[in-house]
């Protein structure tokens, strides 16, 4: 499947009915989702026949994109049941299978995921509204669990901080692309119709996995 096909096939997903501001529920756009998964697949071979997990899956777009690129087993986690219900419905419309888990990324319930999940893809909350630092909690957890690599989006303004943390955690990181996240007006505090947020598309990889 080509990038364009992947992007256009992701257009039919349902978004959030009532997005929750405290959870920063913005749907990842088909453009970003396709770009992320296509790169992970075609450049790094981290998707096909792999166990792929999606942290903070929201309406499930990354898991669906992963499935369309032939990942073998998909798990998706979110703290919000209504988001998971939408994701579940999206998956059944696309006829893809994803195991959903209602869980808090901060909890220890994920301890056994270690060494069983190959790749993690995520668009974590940026932690700018109410839960400062939540993006780094997602990232740290993902890096503890993924055997090979983690693909994630972060605000470009936090780039240096993320690089520093990656070094501290002894993982390689590279910015694959700088992208614009077109966040449509969904909340009252958004004054404009939509706003572009600059984001970095990162790939983090475990140093051991290259040996």
């Amino acid at each position: 499947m080509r990038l364009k096909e992947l992007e256009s096939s992701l257009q039919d997903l349902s978004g959030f009915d009532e997005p929750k501001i405290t959870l920063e529920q913005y749907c990842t756009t088909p453009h970003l989702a396709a770009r992320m998964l296509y790169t992970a697949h075609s450049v790094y071979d981290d998707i096909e026949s792999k166990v792929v997990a999606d942290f903070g899956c929201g309406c499930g777009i990354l898991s669906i994109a992963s499935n369309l690129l032939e990942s073998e087993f998909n798990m998706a986690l979110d703290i919000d049941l209504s988001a998971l219900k939408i994701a579940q419905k999206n998956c059944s419309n696309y006829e893809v299978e994803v195991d959903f888990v209602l869980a808090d990324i901060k909890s220890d319930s994920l301890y056994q995921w270690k060494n069983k999940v190959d790749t993690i893809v995520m668009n974590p909350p940026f932690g700018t509204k109410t839960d400062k630092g939540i993006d780094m909690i997602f990232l740290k957890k993902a890096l503890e669990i993924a055997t090979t690599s983690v693909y994630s989006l972060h605000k470009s303004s936090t780039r240096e901080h993320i690089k520093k943390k990656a070094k501290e955690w002894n993982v390689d990181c590279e910015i694959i692309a700088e992208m614009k996240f077109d966040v449509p007006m969904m909340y009252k505090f958004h004054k404009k119709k939509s706003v572009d947020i600059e984001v970095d598309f990162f790939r983090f990889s475990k140093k051991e996995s290259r040996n």
Partner: protein
Amino acid sequence: MRLVTHNMLQCHVRGCNVNNYPLQLSEVEIEIQETEFNSQFLRSMIRKLEWSALINSAREIGITTLPEVLPDDFDEDFLRNIHRVLLETHIQQGKMTCPNCNHVYLVRDGIPNMLLNESET
């Protein structure tokens, strides 16, 4: 939720740190959904799972066809069976009870709920 995912869930009630895995399945409703067979994937996946936990959980949902000890050699029949158990068997409803503290996590419409109340974390 399939058994692969169940095989990765443990109790996380505060203070419950030993013997908190695997969660015991009961009152389950199962649905079978067929999916493509990929023997190469299964070979690598089996090695990553906790086998003894898996056979216990499978038994709890009425599957008694898994061998007690993981064989060294995986033949086609074994892999086909594993495929059915791991990738095609979906737990739609049920209870998951911690073997240590007896906390109950519910599975509803295929989604396990691992969230706890504030007092439990």
